[in-house]
């Protein structure tokens, strides 16, 4: 003999189901709220993207000017070569030592390979490159290249996400307006048995 009769179990199930359905509705409301936050973020993102594009254009014009001048300077005859080379020979060991100290202390990693790579790099570099701030120019160009790549990928991902979210929020769930009186029937055929549980639903589909 069960401790609680089945009729009471059914009543308890009905009461519990009401709570679960209420929580599902709450989750659904929250989804709509998050969607509105995403729309807001997206509007801000779009306006930011416009500013970003304008700033990119300005930056790239300045970089082009810099590269052009650098080319002209490279094409001009190397002067003061002897002075620069002598200074460069003294600059290299100091640079290497400073960099390796920094690397060992801050990056906490073995500096053997990096030291060898740096030495090779310094021996191949020219003082003229250094004199005309070639490293600063290269650094700007490298950042520009990397940022362009990151931006492209971010945009690509965002458009994928946007497509999916559009699909999600254009589903019949969200597009069937609650104001549509034709479809809205607060008292369905059986209020205790929502239609989405209707056993005929498979047939109807």
């Amino acid at each position, binding site marked *: 003999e069960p401790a609680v009769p089945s009729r009471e179990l059914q009543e308890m199930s009905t009461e519990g189901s009401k709570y679960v359905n209420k929580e599902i509705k709450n989750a659904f409301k929250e989804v709509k709220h998050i969607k509105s936050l995403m729309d807001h973020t997206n509007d801000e993102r779009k306006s930011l993207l416009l500013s970003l594009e304008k700033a990119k254009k300005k930056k790239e014009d300045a970089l082009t000017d810099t590269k052009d001048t650098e080319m002209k300077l490279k094409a001009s005859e190397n002067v003061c070569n002897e002075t620069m080379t002598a200074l460069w020979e003294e600059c290299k060991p100091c640079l290497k030592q400073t960099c390796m100290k920094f690397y060992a202390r801050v990056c906490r990693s073995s500096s053997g390979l990096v030291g060898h790579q740096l030495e090779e790099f310094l021996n191949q570099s020219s003082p003229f490159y*250094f004199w005309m701030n070639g490293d600063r120019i290269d650094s700007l160009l490298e950042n520009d290249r990397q940022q362009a790549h990151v931006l492209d990928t971010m945009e690509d991902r965002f458009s994928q996400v946007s497509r999916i979210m559009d699909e999600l929020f254009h589903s019949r769930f969200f597009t069937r307006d609650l104001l549509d009186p034709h479809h809205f029937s607060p008292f369905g055929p059986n209020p205790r048995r*929502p239609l989405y549980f209707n056993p005929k639903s498979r047939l109807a589909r």
Partner: protein
Amino acid sequence: NIMPFPMYGPMNFQDMFQPFFDMIHRAQQAMDGQFDGLLFQFPMEEFTEGNDNRSVCKEIRHNSTGCLRMKDQCAKCQEILSVDCSASSPEQSQLREELSSSLQLAEQLSQQYDELFRSYQQKMLNTSALLKQLNEQFNWVSQLANLTQREDPFSLQVTTVASHSSDSSVPSGFTKVVLRLFDSDPISVTVPEEVSMNNPKFMETVAEKALQEYRQKSRV
């Protein structure tokens, strides 16, 4: 009123929620796929130990030009930058001045761009966080939908109710309720005996605890 079920006509639970599960999952995958690795790390202006120098270390490992930024700390390197060749080549000197000023402008505009780029990255991170939130809020519902194969009038089905007097394994002073949420595995919940079965709070407590447990499991 968002989900008055009858208005959606003949749809079952799976019909309603399965697409959400797939879509939110796909959206999050698209956004999160190595998103962290994608973030652009801005090289530091100054090599200081107090700052986050991960990007500097990465730059030194990847490309030795990073070390050239430390030229300020070497007097002989500074001297190269001060070499004045105007006497032997006024034209070259003029070009160098032009280069210096256009480089300064390019650096200034790059900094402005970097600021905007940082904000843009932040917006993308915010979107990613919202997707995570969306998943957290809705994951349990869509997982329940995934489990549901049969159509049942109840989203919560109580199977047994027992107290210490009827089942010695139940701690005294508690009522144990075993139930299923849709087609989930049985979930056991205990309620203090002070809340009697006739009390409307009883089933609310049971359902709340069952959902909490289910949500926790679905997060794992």
